[in-house]
């Protein structure tokens, strides 16, 4: 029997039109006098299938993907009213046996995933604490309050949980430092300043299951001895902020925050600090400076935040995902957690698949899963069907891993060996139409703009590196340019003050390591093998394919294309700006990219 209908209403769903679907369903249910609860849930991870509509029965959830208002109407008339699921639209089915959930989906997207942190995401209403509690929420807190703080820290240490923000430092050890630090007031901070291009793990989690993060923080605060917690989240995440605010209010009302939590002697509360969106504020010391009201600029460590952090008091900072792991570990025990993953990287990790991947969304897999499995098994390869050339791991602070290394297990140490980093979990997939020099320039441009400006190597070093890349992509580089880049890049890495500058050269260094031939083609042959770098390419019309329809000429913004009706058209290379419009509008695939020097 159908119990409820739910619409995935995270940012991904909303962007895909979930609001309209929700309104439509609401209207239809009302018009048809169907009194079924219409719920809002978070994101189940299949961002690429949004908007998703779930029809929830006792033992089953049937999910429809890419739902349009018309489809919504039929879902109501057919599935809800007549209990006849529309099988061709079903993208996912969950079955429950004794509370155990098994998921099938049309893409085998979930088959290889293991949900710990995301276990509730997409299934509960993030704005309803009852949903969370029903899903065993806050039971870990109850359990924790019965424990000695040192035992909690031991549990976390033994679980092998490592910081999910990127650096992968042992969470238990970090807590231990903060616990031992001498100071008046201790603080804990949840770092939600997710800023990598193409990363949305934290956003989805905060939007889909905010209580889990809050519960993790309360447990952490109890273990460390902190009275104040701060969630630092960028103001570009209004929905996350809204849901967090709601969750905090609900938790306070339930006595889960504030004085004497759940009747214990432990008091703790959490406030939200909205960041203005500087990437560097993800760095601990810059984040603290920002919370203190100063300019988000890092300062050298030591002193570490654990001894002198916020307002010079001992402070523990963990990433959103790290906090979200805590309740599960306490509920299931460290042994269960440590059983997942590899020897040195325990548990699961969320990855945000983006770029040219077919199945773009959040996936959660055990540490040690290979890239092959993540990108092809779960991600389904590229949207275009072209081969994957590389994946950028860890955002601008990470590196490009080539396809031939996709057999490596994704754990902290193996990934670091490739020159990239696990980072916070962003994976940007590139196919063979991606120029790796251009990719390096793209990420470096990001860091150049996001540098706080404090230290020489970062402010000026990344800028000069970017300019060298620009010289190369413009075809003005020589072997000396590449050498200069190779000289400067490691110096910027070693010479910069904080992680931002230290990791900024990674995209350059890894592309140089794995795709040197592309650099060589740019500087020696003045050619962009992927056909991306505009100054090095030319658009030409294939005379066999051109039918003389005139679409290209009509759309060319600079009037560079001419040709008589039904006759072969020509591109005047002296006028062409390589905007690519002709290629987009040509229905006969007659516009091709060739090397610039081929036509001049």
């Amino acid at each position, binding site marked *: 029997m159908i119990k409820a209908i739910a619409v995935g209403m995270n940012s991904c769903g909303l962007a895909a039109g979930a609001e309209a679907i929700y309104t439509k369903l609401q209207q239809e249910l009302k018009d048809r006098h169907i009194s079924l609860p219409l719920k809002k849930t978070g994101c189940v991870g299949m961002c690429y299938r949004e908007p998703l509509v779930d029809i929830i029965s006792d033992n089953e959830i049937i999910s429809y993907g890419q739902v349009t208002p018309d489809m919504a109407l039929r879902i109501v008339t057919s599935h809800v009213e007549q209990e006849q699921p529309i099988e061709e639209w079903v993208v996912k089915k969950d079955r429950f046996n004794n509370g155990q959930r098994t998921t099938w989906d049309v893409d085998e997207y979930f088959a290889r995933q293991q949900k710990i942190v995301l276990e509730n995401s997409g299934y509960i209403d993030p704005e309803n604490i009852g949903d969370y509690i029903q899903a065993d929420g806050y039971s870990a807190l109850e359990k924790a309050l019965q424990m000695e703080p040192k035992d909690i820290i031991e549990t976390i240490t033994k679980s092998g949980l490592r910081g999910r923000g990127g650096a992968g430092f042992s969470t238990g050890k970090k807590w231990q430092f903060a616990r031992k630090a001498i100071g008046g007031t201790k603080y804990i901070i949840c770092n939600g300043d997710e800023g990598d291009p193409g990363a949305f793990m934290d956003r989805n989690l905060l939007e889909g299951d905010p209580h889990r993060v809050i519960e993790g923080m309360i447990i952490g605060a109890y273990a460390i001895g902190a009275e104040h917690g701060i969630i630092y989240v960028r103001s570009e995440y209004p929905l996350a902020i809204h849901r967090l605010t709601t969750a905090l209010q609900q938790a306070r009302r339930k006595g889960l925050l504030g004085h004497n939590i759940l009747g214990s002697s432990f008091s703790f509360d959490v406030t939200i600090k909205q960041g203005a969106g500087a990437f560097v504020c993800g760095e601990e010391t810059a984040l603290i400076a920002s919370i203190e009201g100063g300019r988000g600029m890092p300062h050298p460590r030591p002193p570490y935040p654990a001894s002198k952090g916020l307002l010079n008091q001992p402070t523990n900072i963990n990433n959103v995902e790290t906090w979200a792991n805590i309740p599960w570990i306490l509920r299931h025990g460290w042994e269960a957690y440590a059983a997942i993953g590899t020897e040195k990287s325990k548990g699961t990790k969320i990855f945000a698949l983006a770029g040219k991947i077919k199945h773009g969304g959040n996936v959660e897999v055990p540490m040690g899963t290979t890239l092959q499995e993540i990108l092809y098994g779960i991600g389904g390869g590229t949207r275009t069907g072209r081969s994957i050339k590389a994946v950028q791991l860890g955002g601008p602070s990470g590196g490009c891993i080539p396809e031939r290394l996709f057999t490596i297990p994704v754990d902290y140490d193996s990934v670091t060996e490739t020159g990239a980093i696990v980072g916070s979990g962003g994976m940007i997939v590139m196919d063979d139409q991606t120029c790796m020099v251009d990719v390096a320039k793209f990420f470096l441009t990001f860091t150049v703009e996001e540098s*706080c400006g404090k*230290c020489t190597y970062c402010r000026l070093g990344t*800028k000069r590196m970017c*300019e060298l890349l620009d010289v190369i992509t413009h075809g003005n580089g020589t072997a000396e340019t590449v050498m200069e880049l190779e000289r400067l890049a490691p110096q910027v890495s070693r010479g910069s003050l904080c992680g931002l500058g230290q990791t900024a050269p990674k995209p350059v260094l890894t592309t140089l390591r794995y795709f040197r031939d592309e650099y060589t083609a740019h500087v020696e042959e003045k050619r962009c093998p992927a056909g991306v770098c505009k100054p090095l390419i030319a658009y030409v019309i294939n005379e066999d394919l051109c039918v003389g329809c005139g679409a290209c000429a009509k759309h060319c913004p600079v009037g560079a294309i001419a040709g008589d009706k039904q006759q072969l058209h020509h591109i005047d290379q002296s006028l062409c700006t390589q905007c690519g419009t002709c290629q987009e509008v040509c229905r006969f695939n007659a516009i091709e990219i060739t090397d610039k020097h081929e036509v001049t």
Partner: protein
Amino acid sequence: MVDVEVDGESMSVPDDVSLFHALRAQGKHVPGLCNLPELNGYGACRLCLINVDGKVQTACTVHASPGAKVETLNEDIVAMRQTALNLLLSDHQGDCIGPCQRGCPAHSDVQGYLALIAMGRYHEAVCLMKKRYILPAVLGRVCPAFCEDECRRHLVDEPVGIREVKRFAADYDLGHGPWMPEIPAATGKGVAVVGGGPAGLSCAYYLRVRGHAVTIFEAMEELGGMMRYGIPEYRLPKDVLDQDIATVIDTGIEVRTSCWVGKDISVEELRETFDAVFLGIGAWHPKTMGLPGENLSGVMQGIEFLQQVNQNKHISLGSKVMVVGGGNTAIDVARSAVRLGAEVHVVYRRSREEMPAEPREIKEAEEEGVTFHFLTNPVKLWGKESVSRVELVKMQQGEPDSSGRPRPVPIKNSNYFMEADTVIFAVGQHTDVAGLQMPLLADAGRLICNDTTCQTGLPGVFAGGDALLGPSTIIESIASGRRAAVMIDCYLQGKLLMAEKTLSNPSSFIADISADETLQQLLFEFRPYNHWKDLSPSDYMHIEKVARKKPRLLKPEERSTNFNEVEQTLSEAAVTHEAGRCLSCGCMAVHKCKLREYATLYEAEQHVFDGQQNHMELDTSHPYVALDNNKCVLCGQCVNTTQKITLEGILDYMSRGFATHVAPPIGTTLQDVEGQFLGDLVDVCPTGALTDRPPFDKPGPWKTTATATICNGCGLGCEMNIEHYGDLAIRAASKTPSWNKGHVCDKGRFGRRWNQGVNAPRIKRQHQWTEISWKEAIQVLHDRMKDMAIVVGPDATLEEAAHLKNMAESYHMPIGADAAEGISTATLGDISIASRIMIAADTKKYPYLAMLLQQALRNGAQLVTDNYDLAILEAPAQPLEVPTLILHHGVNETGLLHMGLKAAPQAKNYLVVGSPRQRLNGFVISLGHFDYADMMLPYPSWIEKDGTVINDFNMELSLHKVREKAVGIERYLWFEEPAVTAAD
């Protein structure tokens, strides 16, 4: 303290300070631009990178740990620091030194001396010139002024007339008792200088000012070389030359004229007798063209001719003279021959444009009737015994030759004849090395020397001037002689090899250079880092065009019959005007710029990373401070100072990434900011991004000396430095260490009360101050001695007060002080430990105290009205039961109170000393400036005094005079016989 290994050496260093300070304390070179002593390491500039246990880290942010292995200068570290510097320089725009200085072969500080001349400080200007060259009066007449070729003013209108301006200053200096250098204690080393021309004189002078004994050996009867025997008197009068040379010789140089080295004495003998030998023997050997008929009588060599003219020897030229050549010598010969009554033709094988002679010389020669024959060359001289005519050939311009000029090619069958009674060849000279009778190598008439050290193949024998350079200008010879002197000095110190390394590859010898002041000076003098802005006329659109003042020349008819000086000196007004045309291109901070210092040491370069540059507007809105973000390296010292120490928040970072810069709050400029410590930010700036704007018409980037003294702005008596250039007090600056941690408020700093003095007696008549003679003034003083009381003002030192007390006793005069009652019982330390502070004073008047209180409040202290543990009151007041700080307006009021000097007694007449503030009822004679006085007598300014004061914290503090005072009447009052009859 922990034991660590630094660069392979075991040492014990403290672990409570960063390695940056610990290593520096050990004498290690650790560069850094962003470190503030009052704060923890900031880590912005990345120059203090060191290797600790295999990892590159900033020294300012790590502390020593036991057993740590530290490397401070390995190849990797040097490369990393160099890259950081290259990066900083890639977005650092400005001129380090003016282009004029670059143009000068001696690299003299042209901008600096022009500024001094603009202010009428001619002796100081000459002093500055003589840091780099001697004989300014000579150069003021005959220098080709390479500086003017580079002058940026040509982008506006015409270059500044630097040579003429210099000439005026040099003549003034000679005419008013020339500036002479101080000669340090004898080093015990002696150097023989062979040749008394510009190179030899220069080498001798610069060795002498380093304390060496110098003997010049001159083959001719008199010193001067080419200046005396080669340049005709109408360009360079002999008396000017004599006076200029005297300023060199009078430093204590021994001279042996008519002594030909190689004939009268051998170089070998000199090597045995002296510790080093300099060969400045010039290039006196004329080149010949090897033409048929050259040995006919009536054929002369230019240099011989000029020598005879300059020795007033009789020369018979006949009526028609042909001069062959196109250099300055040819022109000198031609113009001299005109003056001897001949008709003169100059024959030159190239065109006018290619003539090496100065255009103004050519023009003046033409005005005097010299005829030029360009693209013409002699091929044969005809005559029986004596030359009578010359066969010439016409030339045409061919392909460019090695000099870049078109090669002159004879035109076939174009030969023709010209009559001539005398033919004088002036086609070049070279050095006669053989005459020295020594195994010295030469090439093309020049001695072969080490390019860097000027040492010949013989150890201890150096060379310079034309002998090394070939025929060159006086300034080039002087520069070369000076360089040789510096090298000889290094040689005498046993540092010549190190000097060579220092100048050829400094970044490989940083440790050695940092540990040796001689090498540092050498490096910064001969190979400093400099860069220049790339500018075009459009950058100077806002500059008003002002015509250059030209010197008056004697009219051609006035000059062609005699050897009187042709060019006249500019008037003082014209000189001031001309110096004022200088655009002051060079950076005001060039002498203190740490970026330049490190760039020099690390051989950093601006164009390693050519790329985008930030172009920012200058903020010159503030009367005393200017902000130029184009020079900012974002070290953050100003931001950290104002945000974290002075707590005024005047400046902060703006924008992000590459565009980050420093600015006052959004929407404001420096003139809008409210703060009392803007000047402190100038002091912490390691470059010229924040600079003072001294209240001068044309402040120069002078290399100042710092003298420590006490601020006389209020009773706190902050320690400060006065940076001065000679007698000229440029600015007040931070002094560290000091009790006030280097902070000096803007009031004390820019108010310049410390610079107020009275130079001449003045009396008030009808409310107007009128200058009177000393005699008159003393008379008034004498007349008023009856019923006179002495009032000691708060600017009087303890020593002055003691003298005044003695004097009062001798004369039975009552004495009192202008000092508000109340002596503090609180110390400086009491402020930092106080938790509850009561204030009954206007602390705004005591900015440094206000800063201390702000810091105390930030650290948890409270302002209260009762139950306080520290009281702050303003005098007059009595200490309370808790530690009490009593504030005074005057710097030494507390000191005077300690001496028992209290309220002023009643009298009809008063003699007041030391800047009182209180009005007195009676006839007031003031030593120094006092608005309420009836007569003011000369009195030194605050920075012309030595002495002691006691501040409001009861600290005894010393002030040191920056300069000698002009003799003031106070000498007659108490430092000598207590009699007031002495007059001027």
